[in-house]
């Protein structure tokens, strides 16, 4: 670890605004500290510097030539112009050069509306083309995985090559040939199958690398976007959920230097279709004379409370349940007596080697850590014994797959079964007394705790189907009826109550979590932190 106090600070003036930055900072990064965006393509803070696109050329006083801001470190007292005539003319020149071979694909290109070539050309480029020659043409290629390459649109910024080389450590892309014949190439039989390869689509500033999954699906300007968290594993990558007419059409990574930097793995990125599933439990159901009937919420909650009253409860929770709903269910356990367990599937890990502590994690759920911190046990470590007088409260565990004997016994042997879930699987429907419909994580707000103990908020991205309600809302009502209520009726207030009851979360609040998250106070004590190698 370097001593912060030993770092030399350099003062530099960019577009008339003076800033002080550590020695070794590039002009492009220094500019960000005073809110100046220097237009660029090949530069990316997660990648090694290339300095090839030449978009970021700035006019530094006393320099004989324009300097590439991404590759030039600041010097004391420098005065830098980004938007004077010389720099603007240079950028206009670069834009013109990039457009001469570039096809007029905007009407059919997926990048349209979120294309940096469009953006800068509109802002600073020529209004008309002076190019009167034939354009270079190459056919589209399948790069494997989810990625298609459209060479005609490529501006050879080489972000994709540098990502695969230096971040993914899987050098399957290259720059082939020379001059304006150059294109991004790969070797036969070696495709973009790396678990994180899809990030090249995000990195590509234009529509040269595109997602097959998203191909022709929606226009960028039709999308609504919300900040959320990926539920594919316990890494807790920050994502943006993008919807069109209330249907999730794409997930994009949201940058967070403490979790996923700029990246999202393919598993997380492409697994969103379940969010749009139509076979939802969307009406409260109560078993009346042997048959499940739709009832209104008040009746359903009364029936659920009746099933739980005076009995010990076993809560079988999905590890994708939020901290808020797990907390409220834990309040009910505390009141009634009993225990809470969760089952989490395990899969192979797939690290992004060039980034510290970033991987597709073995635990394939977003909140197993939260469940543990809130007193739930992993069912694989054994179920506490339950009796035939107990009620089973299933919190969105779908009891899928090989129905573990113990779970089957629990289901069969419980006095009552109350299910709070997004769907109603047959195996539960056959047995359940009360089924209460809830939202999935895109239809509510809440928090998850990732494997490092980082508590992160997610926001609502779409509306819920039917009569489904947020799980914390349903559990609040239920807890109230059982005398275990917290008096909180917003997600933020539930979280505040959680923080009051559980020392790990002490002091955290929705306000302080914001959209970057914070670690639980005793992450280290719980063995959640990673020992970083000391420099």
């Amino acid at each position, binding site marked *: 670890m370097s001593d912060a106090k030993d770092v030399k600070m350099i003062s530099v003036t960019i577009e008339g605004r003076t800033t002080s930055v550590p020695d070794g900072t590039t002009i492009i990064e220094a500019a960000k500290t005073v809110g100046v965006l220097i237009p660029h393509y090949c530069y990316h803070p997660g990648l090694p510097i290339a300095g090839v696109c030449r978009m970021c050329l700035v006019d530094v006083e006393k320099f004989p030539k324009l300097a590439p801001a991404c590759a030039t470190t600041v010097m004391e007292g420098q005065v830098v112009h980004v938007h004077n005539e010389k720099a603007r003319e240079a950028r206009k020149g670069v834009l013109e050069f990039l457009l001469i071979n570039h096809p007029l694909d905007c009407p059919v290109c997926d990048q349209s509306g979120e294309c940096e070539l469009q953006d800068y050309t509109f802002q600073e480029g020529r209004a008309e083309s002076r190019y*009167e020659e034939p354009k270079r043409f190459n056919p589209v290629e399948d790069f494997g995985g989810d990625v298609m390459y459209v060479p005609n649109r490529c501006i050879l910024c080489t972000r994709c090559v540098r990502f695969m080389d230096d971040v993914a450590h899987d050098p399957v892309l290259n720059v082939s040939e020379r001059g304006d014949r150059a294109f991004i190439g790969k070797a036969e039989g070696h495709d973009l199958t790396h678990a994180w390869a899809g990030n090249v689509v995000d990195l590509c500033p234009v529509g040269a690398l595109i997602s097959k999954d998203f191909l022709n699906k929606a226009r960028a300007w039709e999308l609504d976007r919300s900040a959320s968290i990926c539920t594919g594993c316990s890494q807790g990558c920050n994502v943006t959920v993008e919807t069109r007419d209330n249907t999730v059409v794409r997930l994009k990574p949201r940058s967070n230097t403490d979790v996923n930097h700029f990246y999202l793995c393919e598993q997380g990125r492409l697994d969103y279709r379940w969010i749009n599933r139509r076979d939802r439990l969307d009406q409260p159901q109560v078993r009346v004379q042997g048959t499940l009937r739709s009832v209104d919420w008040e009746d359903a909650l009364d029936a659920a409370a009746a099933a739980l009253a005076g009995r010990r409860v076993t809560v079988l929770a999905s590890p994708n349940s939020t901290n808020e709903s797990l907390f409220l269910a834990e309040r009910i356990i505390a009141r009634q007596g009993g225990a809470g367990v969760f089952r989490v599937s395990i899969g192979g890990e797939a690290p992004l080697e060039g980034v510290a502590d970033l991987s597709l994690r073995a635990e394939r759920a977003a909140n197993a850590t939260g469940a543990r911190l809130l007193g739930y046990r992993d069912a694989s470590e054994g179920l506490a014994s339950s009796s035939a007088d107990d009620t089973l409260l299933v919190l969105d565990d779908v009891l899928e797959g090989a129905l573990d004997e113990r779970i089957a016994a629990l289901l069969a042997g419980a006095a009552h079964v109350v299910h709070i879930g997004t769907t109603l699987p047959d195996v539960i429907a056959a047995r359940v007394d009360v089924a209460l419909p809830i939202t999935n994580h895109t239809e509510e707000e809440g928090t998850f705790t990732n494997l490092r103990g980082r508590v992160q908020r997610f926001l609502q991205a779409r509306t819920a189907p039917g009569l489904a309600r947020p799980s914390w809302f349903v559990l609040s009502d239920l807890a109230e009826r059982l005398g275990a209520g917290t008096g909180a009726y917003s997600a933020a207030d539930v979280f505040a109550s959680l923080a009051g009851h559980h020392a790990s979360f002490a002091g955290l609040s929705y306000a302080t979590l914001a959209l970057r998250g914070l670690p639980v106070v005793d992450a280290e004590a719980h063995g959640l932190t990673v020992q970083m190698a000391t420099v």
Partner: protein
Amino acid sequence: MGYPHSSHERETPVLSKYFGDPDARTLAGWRARGGYTSLDKALGMDPVEIQNIVKDSGLRGRGGAGFPTGIKWSFMKPDGKTHYLCCNADESEPGTFKDREIMRWTPHALVEGVAIGAHAIYAETAYIYIRGEYSEPIRLMQAAVAEAYASGILGANAMGSGKRVDVHVHRGAGAYICGEETALMNSLEGRRGNPRIKPPFPAVAGLFGQPTTINNVETLAAVPHILREGAEWYQGLGREDNPRSRGTKLFSVCGNIARPGNYEVTMGFPFGEFLNDLCGGALPGREIKAVIPGGSSVPILTREEAENTLMDYEGMVASGTMLGSGGVIVFDDRQDMVKQIARLARFYAHESCAQCSQCREGTAWTTRILERISAGQGNARDFDTLLSIADNMSGKTICVLSDSCATPVVSGLKKFRAEFEAKLGPDHSRGVVPVLLTSNRTVAA
């Protein structure tokens, strides 16, 4: 010697003295001609002493940049790190063919110069990067290096000095850009020949990340002579009123000239006399129209301008051009300047490494416009477009290949405008429909 012609009496043959003499190629032959005495001396000297002698001689880089060699060597400090010397034998500047002659007639001169250079910069290893097309020079240099090792001149105990000097020949594979010093290093490392951004400078972090100096063949070949005859001797060669350009220079003369070949003259020689007297002037019945004096990347001169120029760094600049590599390309009155400038643009387009947007696209665009004009399909907008493109290509890229493409376009349009205008065709309306070119790539879609 103006090989393949015999030396003209007004030449000053130093490097070219043995051009055409096959006996000079062998180790024994080179020794008989005074070879390796300088290296022997140098290996017993402190590197700084050698650097100072070369500084005092006024030797400047002969590859085209003209940077004072002694000063370049002095950037290399005894820091205990592994240092490298690279000899740039990638000679690919159109019009230039002097290094080829040095290597195939006096390979040992280069081995000696490289070894002295390595010692002078605290390097134990030197690589001679020879362009892939130079099969004969490669063969002869490899043979000379082998001879030098066999006789103990090179190796762990070079000439019994106790110092290690290793020299390896490395073959290029067809890329003009690898003559750019940072691209050369990348190519040597087994990478695409992409120029690097500076800083860091090679003397700080170059080949394999280590402090490195890159010198041209002609520069290094001069070093043994300077050590033998003295810095003052070298300083004594050149015109009196210009202390900044000293010594001799090999000028490669080609194109429409009576006696093409390499000529070695002292710096500051009058260009008009050079062309008409030494080189024999125009071919019978023709007249010289234009001259590019320093390889295709320097501005074109008209005959009148050339005849009023002095052949050294400052003299060329005074005439609005540059000494460059000293490749003299002569065009006579039968030549179509538009066609030839278009052909030069095509050269640069072929050689662009593709990193910088301006160069990658600009060289191709320039070529397409010029070839269209050359085919009689030019229009009135083209000239302004060409000049605008040239301006956008200059001073904005990692290396100067981009500027080099712009240079003949700008000087050509300036000085031979009439030839361009004569080619204009019927003016098209703006609605020209581009014809799509098909790719012949064999990758399945």
